[in-house]
């Protein structure tokens, strides 16, 4: 079965074609164009959506060409219906709707966050993991229980991706700033005290954000180091609490921040302590991509038909824990 997935929740516009055979998935192509705001600035939703609109046909054509698939061969089309930025989401939805109605292919609106998790599971082979979803849009600890992904812990305010981006932008870097902060942090071992806020399984980053801005004048490298150490230790502790509480034997990390090596280090050392298997999504597919959207569509298509065109809305606020998982 062949599925096209269209991702456009934030800065990435991506199309991917995935083939599903039984329970196995194979990514045939995954093409992306990423909107880059000017240095020191964040995503401007209108500018990002313009970028997506301008590049959509080129990304789609390349995706088809690379996979050697014709549109007629597609069994389903899925698009990220949320959560994300409204103007950006609508571009992906328009492309999906146009293809679906013109070529008469079933269409599936899917949850972007669920895509991170299920693609991560498919690529790593994790079976029943506790999941840490870390990105610009999410910081959540989840486990699957009776038809839904349940939230065991999450951020009470901003996400870890936002934290890194806002610090980076404050220092004048180009978004997304995670890789730059990681690089600077690796050059220092001087820890400056920062607020460490863990509330049960939840974390809060807003105080850490303000405090880190204040220590940047003392040296950007030590500021980045202290920021990473504090934020990742907080997430490590919250994850460890959730692991101890749920007794899960696998941990899977997905989302853009999963690419950070220091975070992986911390989490794998926690897993070793709890005799738990550690999985991290491959760097190439940790961040936003069409494959995650395509894969969810393919999974859903085994249990339900596509939706009518009049129901292909976008939902900017669509929490993962409200999605019923049937497959």
């Amino acid at each position, binding site marked *: 079965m062949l599925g096209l997935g269209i991702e456009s929740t934030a800065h990435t516009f991506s199309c991917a074609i995935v083939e599903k055979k039984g329970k196995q998935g194979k990514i045939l192509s995954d093409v992306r164009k990423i909107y880059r705001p000017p240095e020191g600035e964040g995503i401007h939703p209108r500018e990002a959506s313009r970028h997506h609109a301008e590049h959509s046909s080129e990304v789609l054509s390349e995706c088809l060409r690379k996979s050697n698939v014709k549109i007629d061969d597609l069994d389903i089309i899925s698009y990220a219906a*949320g*959560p994300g930025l409204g103007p950006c989401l609508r571009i992906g939805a328009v492309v999906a709707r146009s293809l679906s109605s013109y070529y008469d292919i079933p269409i599936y609106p899917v949850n972007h966050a669920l895509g991170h998790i299920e693609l991560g599971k498919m690529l790593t082979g994790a079976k029943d993991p506790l999941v840490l979803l870390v990105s610009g*849009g*999410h*910081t*959540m600890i989840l*486990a699957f*229980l*009776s038809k*839904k992904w*349940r*939230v*065991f*812990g*999450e*951020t*009470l*305010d901003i*996400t870890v991706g936002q934290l890194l981006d806002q610090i980076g932008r404050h220092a004048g870097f180009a978004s997304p700033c995670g890789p730059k902060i990681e690089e600077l942090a690796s050059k220092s071992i001087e*820890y400056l*005290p920062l607020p*460490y806020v*863990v*509330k*049960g*399984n*939840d974390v809060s980053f807003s105080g850490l954000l303000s405090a880190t801005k204040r220590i940047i004048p003392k040296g950007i490298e030590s500021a980045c180091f202290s920021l990473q*150490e*504090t934020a990742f*230790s907080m997430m*490590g*502790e919250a994850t*460890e*609490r*959730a*692991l*101890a*509480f*749920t007794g899960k034997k696998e941990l899977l990390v997905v989302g853009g921040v999963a690419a950070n090596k220091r975070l992986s*280090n*911390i989490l794998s*050392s*926690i897993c070793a*302590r*709890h005799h738990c298997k550690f999985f991290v999504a491959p760097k190439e597919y940790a961040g936003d991509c069409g494959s995650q959207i395509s894969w969810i569509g393919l999974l859903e298509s085994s249990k339900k038909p596509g939706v009518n065109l009049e129901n292909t809305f976008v939902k*900017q*606020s*669509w*929490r993962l*824990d*409200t999605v019923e998982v049937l497959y």
Partner: protein
Amino acid sequence: MKLVKKGAEADIYVTTWNGQNSILKIRKKKDYRVNSLDIRIRTLRTIREAKMIYEVKSFGISTPIVYFVDEKKCEIYLQFIKGKLVRDLPMKQIVKICTDIGKIVGTLHKNGIMHGDLTTSNFILSQRGLVILDFGLSQKTDAIDDYAIDLRLFKEVLNSAHAQIVVGAWASFIQGYQSILGNTLTERIVNQVLVIEKRGRYANVV
């Protein structure tokens, strides 16, 4: 000395203290944390836990007695309580017992203390009734927001680990909580829980 639980924060051993059955709680060094941060967190929580247990005892909360604290090694010797974790009880019983949990939490809040880690594995049902554990994340506070954070965490735990019974268990909890704090205050705090949930990502609270 026998390891009974490798918790997130501490390792729990069964041992004896001056001939009494005792729990030894050791907040071990975490290799993944920067040393100075690690020491700060472990020492702070060890001392705070001992102080808070002493304090909440003064208004009749049932929690293990502290036998001894070694703040250098981050160790606490606590009274051994025989019983079962609420998390592992049958569902029906959890729903019922949530009223008692509500009463204990209500009493803490009434006396200006938030617990900070209200999960169903931090309550033991013993022969002498319900016992609350783990004051490592507790805080003295008179902010409504802090009490609401306690409630929100408990709700999150019910929602995730006890999804099948969340509605009944939450109602039962609130019933007990209200019986201690009264209608007006309870309503204010429960409303604040909704405010906190709305602060969350993509929240769609009605």
